[in-house]
């Protein structure tokens, strides 16, 4: 039944439709706006869940794929022999596989939770919800498109709403944070675009042999890129032409550009500073989306493009990535340990946890890759939960500084309990989802780089140290009389908290729920790592 409707397009574009509808609604009626935003967030979520349930790992995402040609531009034949026609095509390709499916679901869940958490937004609701829905379209699109041109468009589409959402509704230092965000990510996007252009121009063709030579068609199709780069693409007499072969240097350049572009988003160790400000200054519901989904676009991009298109290069560079990952883990953890501001602590914790994703990618085996994706999803949920509580606490106490808070378990036992659970999940307690991702990443990396893994595992210890320090300083200890009267979570806040905790527990206890669909998608990649041939 799901195959009959263009479900991927629906998931992607329904939020946009909601945004357009919302523009028409009167600004005054906050309630109606909230309900409309909720509806247009819920429908893609329901579709995503449905898709997840229907998805058959053995078949893959083929039944749901969509492909339309949007625009073709004929190019002059440039005098080459054996070419019947030459055209540049802009396609609209949507597809899903075991890698994008969990992240799509994550997007839906986190968006819904963030929407519920957005009750804290006190000004300009309409603009907020319009931008929020736009952001959703961008995020879904990033995960669901199979065309690099569209990927870039969606990637940028997440950037602009996020910029305004941070810059308008953030806390004190919001403008600076938004600027940082835009500049860094702009640089990342530019590098990504450059890499994509290189790839499309050299490896983005399909050749159809015919009378009078081949009909060449250039497009941004990911599958075409994948096939051509791995040497199993369409055979044309031109395929052997040096123009259509990425030289080693070019391959490396594209690979490094992609790694840096997505490394900034992830964020990878030396490129992390932008994200601290965003975590500290953005409004809580946006940080939920940011830490929960936007950072995961970096992980997704790394695996989708850097790893799948360039497995040979990744194999060469795995050591470097693993070292960067371990450095990120330890560096983030040590810095988190000395932070006085809980939001910054969480920001550094994200740096540390994204280092684990990098480890999983660098491990070059299915265990590690599963771990990386699992970690991405799990950290998405945990970070969303943590920032949800941080937002609620901030609304009540006006501060999230560790030294100013304390003993909140007395007045807000429920929220403290959730915070403690989230903290424990974040430090990788087994039984909660954080552990599975960490464990699998370490397990994967351990195969090839044992000593490095041991250093990475030290990060687990440090994460316990800083997480407990942060969480326990807030909830344990004697309570300051200042916070005597603060109120327990309202229903609309408690609902997403409980839902997220339930998900975190569920994934921790029964991880196959998430890893099941992933496995077959990684098989060709792991094969490629083993054989060392591109693809």
């Amino acid at each position, binding site marked *: 039944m799901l195959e009959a409707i263009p479900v991927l397009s629906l998931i992607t574009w329904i939020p946009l439709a909601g945004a357009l509808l919302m523009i028409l609604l009167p600004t005054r009626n906050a309630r109606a706006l909230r309900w409309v935003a909720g509806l247009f967030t819920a429908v893609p979520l329901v579709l995503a869940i449905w898709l997840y349930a229907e998805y058959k790992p053995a078949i893959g995402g083929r039944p749901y794929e969509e492909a339309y040609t949007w625009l073709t531009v004929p190019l002059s034949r440039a005098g080459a022999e054996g070419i019947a026609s030459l055209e540049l095509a802009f396609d609209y390709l949507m597809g899903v596989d075991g890698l994008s499916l969990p992240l799509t679901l994550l997007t839906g869940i986190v968006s819904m939770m963030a929407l519920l958490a957005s009750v804290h937004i006190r000004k300009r609701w309409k603009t907020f919800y319009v931008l929020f829905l736009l952001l959703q379209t961008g995020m879904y699109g990033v995960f669901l498109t199979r065309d690099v041109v569209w990927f870039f468009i969606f990637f940028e589409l997440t950037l602009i709403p996020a910029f305004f959402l941070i810059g308008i509704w953030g806390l004190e230092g919001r403008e600076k944070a938004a600027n940082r965000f835009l500049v860094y990510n702009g640089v990342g996007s530019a590098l990504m675009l450059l890499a994509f252009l290189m790839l499309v121009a050299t490896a983005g063709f399909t050749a159809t042999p015919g009378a009078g030579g081949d009909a060449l068609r250039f497009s941004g199709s990911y599958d075409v890129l994948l096939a051509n780069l791995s040497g199993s693409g369409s055979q044309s007499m031109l395929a052997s032409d040096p123009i259509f072969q990425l030289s080693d240097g070019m391959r490396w350049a594209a690979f490094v550009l992609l790694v840096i572009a997505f490394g900034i988003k992830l964020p990878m160790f030396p490129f992390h*500073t*932008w994200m601290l400000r965003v975590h500290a200054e953005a409004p809580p519901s946006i940080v939920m989306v940011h830490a929960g989904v936007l950072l995961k676009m970096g992980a997704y991009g790394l695996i989708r493009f850097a790893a799948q298109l360039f497995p040979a290069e990744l194999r060469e560079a795995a050591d470097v990535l693993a070292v960067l990952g371990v450095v990120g883990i330890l560096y983030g953890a*040590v810095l988190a340990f000395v932070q006085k501001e809980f939001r910054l602590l969480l920001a550094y914790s994200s740096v540390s946890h994204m280092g684990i994703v990098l480890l999983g990618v660098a491990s070059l085996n299915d265990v590690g890759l599963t771990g990386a994706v699992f970690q991405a999803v799990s950290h998405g949920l945990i970070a969303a939960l943590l920032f949800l509580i941080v937002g609620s606490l901030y609304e009540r106490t006006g501060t999230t500084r560790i030294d100013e808070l304390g003993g909140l378990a007395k007045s807000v036992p429920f929220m403290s309990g959730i915070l403690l659970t989230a903290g424990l999940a974040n430090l990788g307690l087994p039984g909660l989802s954080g552990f599975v991702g960490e464990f699998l990443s370490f397990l994967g990396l351990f195969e090839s780089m044992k000593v490095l893994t041991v250093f990475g595992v030290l990060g687990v210890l440090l994460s316990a140290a800083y997480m407990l320090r942060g969480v326990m300083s807030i909830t344990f200890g004697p309570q300051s009389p200042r916070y005597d009267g603060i109120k327990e979570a309202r229903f609309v806040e408690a609902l997403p908290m409980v839902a997220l905790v339930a998900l975190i527990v569920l994934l921790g206890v029964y991880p196959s729920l998430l*890893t099941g669909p992933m496995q077959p998608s990684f098989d060709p990649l*792991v094969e490629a790592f083993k054989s060392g041939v591109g693809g």
Partner: protein
Amino acid sequence: MATVFAAYAWLVPALPLAAFALLTAFGRSLRTTGAWVAILASLGSLALALLIAGERLAGAEDYSQSFNWLAFGTATLSVGIDVTNLTSLMMVVVTVVGFLVNVYSYGYMRDDERMTVFYAYVSLFLASMLGLVLADNLLMLYIFWELVGVCSFLLIGFWYHKPEARDAAKKAFIVTRVGDLGLLIAVLLLFWYMPGHALDFTSIGNVFGNDGGAISAGITTLIALLIFLGAVGKSGQFPLHVWLPDAMEGPTPISALIHAATMVAAGVFLVARTFVIFEASPAAMATVAAIGAFTAIFAATIALAQNDIKRVLAYSTVSQLGYMMLGLGVGSVVAGMFHLFTHAFFKALLFLAAGSVIHAVHTQDIREMGGLGSRMKTTAWTFGIGALALAGIPPLAGFWSKDAILAAALERNPLLFVVGAVTAFLTALYMSRLFYMVFAGKPKDDSHAHAHESPAVMTAPLVVLAALSVIAGFVETPWYGWFGEWLTGEAAHHAGYLAMIVATAAGLLGLYLGWLIWQKGTIDRKALAARMPGLVRVLERKYYIDEFYDLVFVRSLRRLGYVLRAIDGLVVDGAVRLVAVTAQAVGRLNTRMQSGQLQGYLLAAVFSVVILVLAVAGRRLW
């Protein structure tokens, strides 16, 4: 005999887990009902555990069952349960103590408004501990290993408003996590070295049992030592023992359940469970024995100088756990597990009795106590039985198990035997000190004069445990090796009467000396302390190990953090800012060039055109 009840073994942890879920969901509206839910759940577990044990006593087959937890292309991680004699023994120990503690807590925690939370945590702990015991593979064991750790953490910090409790909980979690890392790395190593990535104990037994042919000796030793590191953390062995005494900030029933009888013994259980790996590596065995022996004597000396009733017992626990490790290290699983078995009863008894005392006098400082024996008869009597059992006085349970360890040590290494004997002496000494200072003499404080016996719901578990402390030892005596045979299939060897005589002598000597010092006053303890002020201070400060750790690890980590923070701000972020500043400078320069005068712009345009044309088509001009 058929395995009837073993098939339901999964219910043993599931019952407390259900209680936990129930209490968490409806906790606030339940209160005493909640306590009953938890107690009944633990009773159910106890009954089932006993049924399973009974079935096994009748000689049932081992039972195991497992499911895929996570599957990859190359390997599968599974979860499952494994019912063997060893696990069913542990199950009985855990459920007995758990049930009794649950009953006891009903009296102890009666006035606490968060009683249901307490019971929820205890139920979760029981579920995790039983899961740990039943786990059929190392990964699942590790998962529950961490879960019991977190339950311990939650319960230590149960009185969250006390800063000491908060710090103790944090410390307990982090210090044990150091050990857990060892176990985690051991799991990683095993996963990649074991044929077929198998982590279940049966495969481990097969691989390492066949003289470890598949895995090199170095790796075997490494794995064994890493597993032992996990055990060291959990069982409070030197050098990771520091958390256990601090953990006494938790409610006393918790100290009895988690930090005396069950969780801390998990380290011993772990070593016993993976004993084949240790057997394959003589170096690892020697390390286990050495660390165990050292911890035993080291903690016993500290216990001598502590003034907090629970801390004395805590160091005693550390010491006794060292004893168990020593037993394992000298190659006798039976001795180690036997001591675990008996120790669980009498140490739980001691803690619960101490809790009864604390409940009555509202202090933990033994210098403020005294003369309680007349007012709290049951408590005093049961505590006395526990103390004698701990001191290894025949025919109480502690004597037999300690004797088994000493006998095994004598066989292996006389030095270890001597250390064990000295420890036995010290144990008797500090226990007599504790007993006399608390129960004998006159009340030091008027308020304590009105202390009265605890309610029956608290004393009844004491009596049951006291009875167990008396009789539990008879399952394994030099003349009757039934326990050892049941557990490992082979009778433990006993080295004759020498060990027995020495152990008894050491215990009696310790008691006598204690009587002389703290009861009769023949030896003036003030003068004794004045003779060795340095030693006393060192012992009181626990050899300054906490201070050392604080200096070396905590402070240096924080200092590293500050340095990195400066680097993060100045270098990493600074590089970015430098780029920004450069861009701004270029921009400013450009602004100056933008004079607003068209002619200037046009001139630039002309030059640009010229250059562009020359660049693009320059070659064609000539």
